[in-house]
């Protein structure tokens, strides 16, 4: 297979993008950017609706149930109906709440996830922007959602919210460290911080994906990424900031209507983003899986890259759901123990080993 070109023609280099370029050579960049952003907005607004339905369906199947069945085919329109209901619901503000902060808080996680979506490489040259320091951008922006949760807990004037927010703050800040260290590992071995180039570094067969490279280390890094990103997403078994059975609703206790929906939607888009990054870093992103078999490889390569990206991303999302509907929740101090006494040292060791492997040329 010929290596894909690394030349940068942003935002899109496909049929539509090139057509725009020939028709309006001067303003092509801006038109293409507008097209991509509108597509992305559409995706961001439809994705949580689909993911919530998926989550409910998958959860139901894990629990020997059917899940939503009534609204639309197998309940496909259920979450749209729920979303519509949330939009029309009254937005309540508790007495004594800090009004400005209370209504600002849900906007932050929602916008943060949208910003990260902008640099996800959906396909080769299907990406709003590919900054050279893409990884750093991801880390920086995803910190905003922590801020939203902290503000929500603080502004709600409710002890449950405050406890949830404080737990969440401590948790996300801690787990961000190991998340960053794992990203650093990939950046170290690939030598680039651009998400698209990280994908391009995995060209070849399936064995060239980072999950299978660096004998043994790749898979461990992937597992550790899954653990820390689950914690970063506030999903079970690390959902201590919501912890329904302890804190009723955690940081979102006092939210209703559309402001609750924004938290909820952000959570699901965040899951997609996190899974997308996992597939970019470890599973070859938009690259078609190649097994070195002549009869099936061209067939797989024929399927467009963005489909492969979605397949891989939804596989990781399924893993998140599988964790959530199997495990009990950790306690707050056990969570900290896991991060600071187990994951972080393991991460550092992993990083050192990877450096050693790199120096010895054992990348495979």
């Amino acid at each position, binding site marked *: 297979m010929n290596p894909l070109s690394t030349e940068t023609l942003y935002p899109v280099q496909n049929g539509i993008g090139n057509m725009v370029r020939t028709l309006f050579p001067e303003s092509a960049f801006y038109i293409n950017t507008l097209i991509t952003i509108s597509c992305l907005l559409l995706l961001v607004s439809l994705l949580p609706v689909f993911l919530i339905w998926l989550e409910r369906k998958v959860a139901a199947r894990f*629990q020997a149930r059917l899940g939503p069945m009534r609204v639309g085919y197998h309940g496909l329109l259920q979450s749209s109906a729920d979303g519509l209901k949330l939009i029309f619901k009254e937005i309540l503000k508790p007495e004594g709440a800090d009004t400005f902060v209370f209504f600002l808080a849900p906007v932050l996680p929602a916008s943060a996830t949208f910003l990260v979506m902008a640099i996800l490489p959906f396909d080769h040259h299907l990406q709003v922007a590919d900054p050279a320091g893409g990884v750093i951008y991801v880390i920086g922006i995803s910190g905003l959602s922590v801020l939203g949760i902290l503000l929500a807990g603080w502004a709600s004037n409710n002890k449950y919210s405050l406890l949830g927010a404080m737990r969440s703050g401590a948790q996300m800040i801690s787990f961000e460290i190991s998340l960053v260290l794992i990203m650093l590992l990939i950046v170290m071995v690939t030598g680039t911080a651009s998400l698209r180039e990280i994908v391009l570094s995995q060209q070849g067969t399936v064995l060239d994906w980072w999950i299978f490279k660096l004998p043994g280390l790749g898979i461990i890094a992937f597992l550790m990424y899954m653990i820390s990103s689950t914690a970063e997403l506030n999903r079970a078994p690390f959902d201590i900031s919501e912890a329904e*059975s302890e804190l009723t609703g955690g940081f979102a206790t006092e939210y209703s209507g559309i402001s609750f929906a924004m938290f909820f939607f952000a959570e699901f888009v965040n899951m997609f983003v996190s899974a997308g990054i996992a597939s970019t870093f470890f599973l070859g992103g938009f690259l078609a899986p190649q097994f070195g078999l002549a009869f099936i490889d061209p067939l797989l390569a024929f399927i467009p890259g963005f489909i492969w990206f979605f397949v891989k991303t939804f596989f990781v999302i399924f893993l998140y759901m599988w964790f959530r509907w199997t495990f009990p929740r950790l*306690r707050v101090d056990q969570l900290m123990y896991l991060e600071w006494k187990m994951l972080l040292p393991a991460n550092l060791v992993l990083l050192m080993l990877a450096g050693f492997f790199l120096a010895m040329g054992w990348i495979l």
Partner: protein
Amino acid sequence: MDLQPVNKFTSDSNGIPEGFSRTGSSGRSSEEYFLNMGPQHPSTHGVLRLVLRLDGESVLEVVPHLGYVHRGLEKVAEGQTYIQNIHLTDRLDYLSSHINNLGYCLAMEQALEIGIPERGEYIRVMVSELQRIQSHLLWWGVSGMDLGAVTTFLYGFKERELITDIFEELCGARLTMNFFRPGGSFADVTDTFIPKVKNVIEIMHKALAEYNTLLTGNIIFQERTKNIGILSKETALSYGCSGAVLRASGISYDVRKNDPYSIYERFDFDVPVGSIGDCFDRYSLKMKEMAQSVRILEQAVTHFPEGPYRSQQKAVYKLPKGSYYSQVETARGLLGTYIVAEGGAKPYRVKFRSPSFSNLNVLNELAVGHKIADVVTILATLDFVVPDLDR
């Protein structure tokens, strides 16, 4: 209009709510605060209200407030006939209503010296054990959910449904059974009862293994429950705990074994005993109890006799003057029924000694020093039913 909050703490001049020790108990420099948990809270299983004195996440003191479903059942019982009172006992601990019925009927039988036919006794034992398994299955599902594993809730209910169906076929109700009567039960078992029980036995063997793989063996679950809420032998005895809460602390006391009622002395079963008295011990004890109940069912199914199911019934039951006491082992522990009779058709006084009430009282002893999440774990393993607390 100046609206006063309805649910305000009644607190003294220091701002310490009702029921707490007056002095600051932490001795640390950080600020204490009070958190109201319930009566509307997902993990207090009904309308139990706890007020926690907290230092950050650490619990310094817990004060439970009861009485949100107090219906005055003991007083109501004074105005009703003995037979009518049986259906009140359904509403004590609604998860072991058959066993509650049995406890009340035993006291009446003791007073009136009524015998029970062989088949009636077998029905009683089998139904009681099915009820115990059913109650434990619900408890298993719900305590998993309290710890964040929502799936256990559905799995527990899946198997529980089989037993509830048996009860529905047997007496027409799924929760408030009102099945036992002095001298037996109001109806014989149906033809499908024994095959259905055999089916439950078969399924429970598989289900218990699955539950142990899913939850008991899970490292997160073990970390969450081991060494949490340790109840010492002495404390357990001094608070009058019973059931799995007492046995987990290392005291082997089961009414079925130590003071056998019905025909429990004929069955071969073990009373599992814990050693430490932490949440994990209480949990695993209940899992073992389910296996023992299945064992009793297996024996009962093979020896199930033919014959009458109820001895000759009377038009009106009048207990002779005196006081009568019976105790049974419900799914939660020792249920005592005390009846004072004046000779008429209605009791002078009925007193229920409910297991949940005594078991919940140890909450403060267990929860101090642990985290908020552990309070939920401890509540789950204490396994109380709020209507049983309040009566």
